[in-house]
């Protein structure tokens, strides 16, 4: 089987079935081939690996794959596929920061769609349902490129039978459309409704709009999935419990139906959605490592560190070992009460001050 077929198989097989040990065996040969291909196709990757004097064929374990700091996507063109791109994704950068630029080839896009569908199906089933996007359609418009917010809505939209946006876009401002949201719940409140949004947008815009309009709904089978923006909420001292409780109260669902996901634009196609035990699991085509703050060695169970995501989906950028600026912790492996195999982890926080790790010379050409 060639590497493309192996990746296809990892996507199409039932998810979360590999034990920790099986995953090591399945993923490492694929990652070695990907590294070789990236080495050939991108001069920045080449100078990075040359400097490390790495013999790719002899990488002994997943932990030994060198981590690539996520900031590199801000400063370097890391396209690794020769052909034309389907789109470019940009990180939602805070003001003044250079956004990350993620090149997406048609093959990468196709795998991302299938991969996300496999994850969604595992968590929620294959049945499509009424979908409330807690955003404005503008987040999802393809101009120069789309943002993480738009990419998430696009990705999850395969679950939509009918898609309704809670906000309109008025000259770049989000305006709550009360009538449309009322109408949506009037028609669907007894059904299994799926709602999706950015954590901070849900809290600061949607919650506020519901309170201002004195709106409450009764939608007991609603699932609200949200991601991104915890930093701003922590600053307002809003915990996960408060968030879930408040939104469940306003929408008439249960707090355990409010599920946090961890994802980022470099990892489009992969979302780490909370399981019933409140843990996050890596699907077949991905792995999670926690790395020590100082040494960047792999941390064991219960030791917080930087989250590294190993993502086998892209051929158009080096996604095989991206070291994030996020802090997380592995809680265990193969024994989560939800039944999913492999490592499980929790997200702790996003680093306030990034680039503290002296990674600036990763790609310097000597």
């Amino acid at each position, binding site marked *: 089987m060639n590497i493309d077929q192996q990746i296809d198989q990892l996507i199409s097989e039932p998810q979360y079935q590999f034990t920790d040990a099986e995953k090591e065996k399945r993923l490492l040969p694929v990652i070695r081939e990907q590294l070789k291909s990236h080495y050939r196709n991108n001069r920045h990757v080449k100078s990075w690996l040359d400097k490390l004097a790495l013999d790719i064929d002899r990488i002994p374990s997943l932990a030994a794959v060198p981590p690539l700091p996520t900031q590199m996507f801000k400063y370097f063109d890391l396209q690794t596929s020769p052909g034309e791109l389907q789109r470019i994704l940009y990180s939602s950068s805070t003001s003044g920061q250079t956004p990350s630029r993620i090149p997406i080839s048609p093959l990468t896009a196709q795998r991302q769609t299938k991969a996300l569908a496999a994850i969604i199906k595992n968590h929620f089933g294959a049945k499509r349902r009424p979908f409330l996007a807690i955003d404005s359609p503008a987040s999802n418009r393809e101009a120069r490129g789309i943002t993480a917010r738009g990419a998430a809505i696009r990705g999850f939209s*395969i679950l939509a039978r009918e898609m309704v946006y809670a906000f309109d876009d008025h000259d770049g401002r989000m305006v709550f459309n009360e009538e449309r949201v009322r109408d949506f719940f009037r028609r669907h409140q007894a059904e299994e409704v799926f709602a999706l949004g950015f954590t901070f947008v849900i809290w600061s815009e949607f919650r506020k709009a519901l309170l201002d309009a004195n709106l409450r709904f009764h939608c007991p089978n609603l699932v609200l999935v949200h991601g991104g923006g915890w930093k701003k909420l922590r600053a307002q001292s809003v915990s996960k419990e408060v968030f879930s409780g408040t939104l469940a109260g306003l929408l008439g669902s249960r707090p355990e139906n409010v599920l946090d996901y961890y994802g980022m634009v470099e990892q489009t196609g992969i979302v780490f959605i909370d399981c019933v035990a409140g843990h996050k699991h890596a699907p077949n085509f991905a792995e999670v490592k926690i790395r020590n703050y100082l040494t960047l060695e792999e941390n064991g169970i219960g030791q917080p560190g930087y989250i590294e995501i190993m993502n086998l989906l892209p051929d158009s950028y080096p996604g095989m070992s991206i070291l994030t600026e996020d802090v997380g912790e592995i809680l265990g492996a193969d024994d989560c009460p939800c039944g999913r195999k492999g490592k499980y982890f929790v997200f702790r926080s996003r680093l306030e001050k990034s680039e503290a790790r002296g990674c600036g010379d990763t790609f310097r050409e000597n």
Partner: protein
Amino acid sequence: MTVEQIFSECFNIPVEQVHDNIKYQEIEKWDSLNHLKFTARLEEVYDIELDMDDIINMSSVKKIREILQNYGVAA
């Protein structure tokens, strides 16, 4: 209504140009958002409920026809 007619209406191409080999994202209008509108229209016209796998697998006009046949629609 035939699948060609629905396809023609949703993706804005003349019905006589719709053929089995057109693939997803090959014509400009057939992107992920219009794909959803298209599948919603199929469900409405044929009174069926497609699941997520069907949506993913509708990668060409030929595949669409095959998937509809699974639902007993002779399209």
